[in-house]
């Protein structure tokens, strides 16, 4: 955890968090835009590192995309300010929504997202996949074109699944899974913000577990998992958390998805529900491939090479998987 020592990074973390708070709590679009820009400018120093070329490349790409998105955001809010014509309400909302979709890395402007993820370290990946999505999503909820976003949701799920299907890189895979989950998140946003909060919290919790575990064993590609000789508890933890992320019923990840499915069905959105469920089925297949390689494959293991993990990390990870399992209790009490 280098950033705890580096005072620059501490500062930029501070601005990163507060810029999000600025943008989601301001009551004018301009204030939102300011928050987004501060967010961009504080995240770039966090991801650059002088030693790693990939990081620098990623930061440059991030800068380009994330500056174009707020520019268009600014442009469209100004346009809306100038032309107070309710006849074009839909198109304005599409414009604003598009720039926000670009910002959060959703379909159809998601192409930067896996590329940049590929160049980041696991902790930055975690921030990118969770915290950086808060402000665009909240802004989206302020001014949302339901028809447009519904199509985007469905495509998010499909593309997230299809993109992650053939991936070898775990970071890209997680990026696509994040795109998949973005669909769920938008749908929860459509229903109520408290559901979104719960979903987002649980999702970022699961993503955090995955990122921390991959960070601990320093894994970036699936085939690295074949060769690694892991602790039994670690393997079980990977398995439980991946299945939880995929939404296997008794686990925590299913609980959040269940809520959303329940509300979607209550609001008669059957088509969206169908696509969500089908895509999460394939998502589980993708996760099981990772589990399979790490857990069940036997042949290529280095018997003489033992991955050493500090005991307190193991404790933390076991605690995580315990929480993942606690989804059973949550889901028991949810509908009673």
């Amino acid at each position, binding site marked *: 955890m280098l950033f705890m020592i580096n005072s620059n990074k501490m500062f930029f973390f501070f601005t990163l968090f507060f810029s999000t708070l600025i943008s989601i709590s301001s009551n004018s679009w301009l204030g939102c835009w300011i928050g987004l820009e501060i967010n961009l400018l504080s995240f770039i120093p966090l991801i650059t590192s002088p030693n790693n070329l990939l990081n620098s490349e990623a930061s440059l*790409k991030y800068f*380009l*995309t994330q500056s*174009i*998105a707020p520019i*268009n955001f600014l*442009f*469209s809010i100004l*346009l809306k300010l100038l*032309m107070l014509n309710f006849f*074009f309400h839909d*198109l*304005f909302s*599409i*414009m604003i929504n*598009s*720039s926000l979709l*670009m910002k959060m890395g959703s379909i159809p*402007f998601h*192409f*930067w997202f*896996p*590329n940049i993820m590929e160049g980041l370290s696991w902790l930055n990946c975690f921030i990118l996949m969770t915290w950086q999505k808060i402000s665009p999503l909240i802004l989206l909820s302020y001014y949302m074109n339901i028809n447009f976003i519904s199509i985007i949701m469905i495509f998010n799920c499909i*593309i997230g*699944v*299809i*993109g992650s*299907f*053939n991936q070898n890189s775990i970071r890209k895979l997680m990026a696509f899974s994040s795109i998949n989950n973005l669909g769920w998140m938008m749908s929860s946003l459509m229903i109520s913000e408290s559901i979104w909060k719960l979903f987002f919290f649980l999702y970022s919790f699961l993503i955090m577990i995955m990122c921390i575990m991959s960070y601990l064993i320093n894994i970036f590609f699936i085939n690295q998992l074949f060769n690694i000789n892991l602790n039994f508890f670690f393997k079980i933890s990977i398995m439980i958390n991946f299945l939880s992320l995929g939404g296997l019923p008794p686990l925590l990840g299913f609980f959040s998805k269940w809520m959303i499915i329940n509300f979607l069905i209550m609001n008669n959105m059957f088509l969206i529900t169908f696509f969500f469920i089908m895509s999460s089925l*394939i998502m589980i297949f993708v996760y099981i491939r990772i589990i399979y390689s790490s857990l069940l494959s036997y042949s290529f293991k280095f018997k003489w090479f033992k991955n050493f993990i500090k005991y307190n990390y193991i404790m933390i990870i076991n605690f995580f998987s315990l929480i993942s399992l606690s989804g059973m209790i949550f889901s028991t009490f949810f509908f*009673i």
Partner: protein
Amino acid sequence: MHQKFSICFISFFFLFFFMLMNLFMMIYFIISNLTIMIEWEIISFNSISIVMSILLDWMSLLFMMFVLLISSSVIYWKKSYMSSEINLNRFIILVIMFVLSMILLIISPNIISILLGWDGLGLISYCLVIYYQNVKSYNAGMLTALSNRIGDVMILMVIAWMLNYGSWNYIYYLMFMKNDFFMNVISIMIILAAMTKSAQIPFSSWLPAAMAAPTPVSALVHSSTLVTAGVYLLIRFNLLLEDMFMLKILLLFSGLTMMMAGISANYEYDLKKIIALSTLSQLGLMMSILSMGYGDLAFFHLLTHAMFKALLFMCAGVLIHMMNDNQDIRMMGGLSIFIPVTSLCFNISNMALCGIPFLAGFYSKDLILEVTMMSNLNMMVLYLYYFSTGLTMFYTIRLMMYLMINDFNLMSVYNLYDEDYIMLKSMMILLFMSLISGSMLSWMIFCYPYMIFMSLNMKLMVIYVSLMGGMMGWLVSKMNIYSVNKFLMMYNLNMFFTLMWFMPNLSVYGFNYYILSFSKNLYKNIDMGWSELFSGYGMFNLIKNYSLISMIYQMNNFKIYLFSFVFWMLLIMLMILV
């Protein structure tokens, strides 16, 4: 094994102590007409409560007392019988678990806890049947387990149906919901479950197959525990079942079971199988008197039968021990000279089985036959009853002639010894019980005695058929090798009777052939065919190809991507402006 406090002795002590407790409680309950129901609510939600309940009345206490008495003496007997067994502890634990699940079944008025006991019986009976780990006992165990599984499924479905009433304490609904459609469905399922457990006709093939179990297990299973569970369940449900059409079918089927088992026993040469088939015949008797509405008589016969059947199996075990693990009755003979005490036990239990006066079986069997005669009866059932009574005498006399009178045929060097006092002591307990239990129970449990009034011929009809049966048995035991050729004259008919009306064949090959060939076709055409092409492999390929296409899009130029975004925004702006 020869230390003073072996596991057998300790288990014997506790079971016997528990038995005595039950005995005194039973006497108190029966005389003060008392019923105690203990209920503990485990969970309750949405107007459904799952409770663990215990029902203590004289019936459950008496049955428990008999189960415990038999199991305690069988376990004590096992100390000698299984003395060279390496896994004796495992065996004893299995048997005790078996007894415990039977007790759970006996004391529960709740269908869920009945299922616990019922499934426990099924599972542990499987473990006990495959105790001698070879292919034969594996097959027998599988047949036992799967046949009993049908009954388990029926009980499970009863649980599902009883969900409608909000509680699984069936005992409250027997009278109250009698005319409900759901209750009729439930009673049909209960009857089917009881038929599997008590091996009535379509399901009877497992009972002789279960003889692959060690003999003490047979003594326990076929006397008081496993096979009587079905009868006991129907006795508990008797209030509900009165005047049901299904009960008439049960009456016919159990009567046919009685006859089928009696005939097959006459064709059999395996000592244990003869006894198993006689158990089957007696079970048919219990079931049929039960389905005529006399639950207390069925219970009475169940108890007395438990006593002498356990004793019979224990004597058979002693004989098998002495015969160098040989079960063929043609090899045995002249035993009354060599082993008088064991022969005494064997003969007394056999005599009790065919209802020789003043032994245990007489009181129950004679009463059943006379009550049958006194009621308004279908002639077919009357015929089945009396014919089967004759058959009981038939195979009993035949067995006794083979064992006691004929010559000893096994080997020229043999060691028949009657000094195994552990076995003899435990057999003496049951011997005493099979002498007095009929009389004792008939005084004890019939608060309202049955009045029998019939003419001399009717009264003597039992004796007529018994004498005829005994005569036939004596004649058949004289059969020689050339008499067997007579069988070939009606080969198919004889095979029909010998193979228990083809039931073992039909329940194994008769079903499996069709099911397996169907599943082979399914496997070939669906699993390895269309389903593989469309769902497994095909779906994977499809998504993989889509993924490849999406990767091509993914690998585009960054500039083009940014441009396309700007282009999209411009497009929408133009739509606004134009």
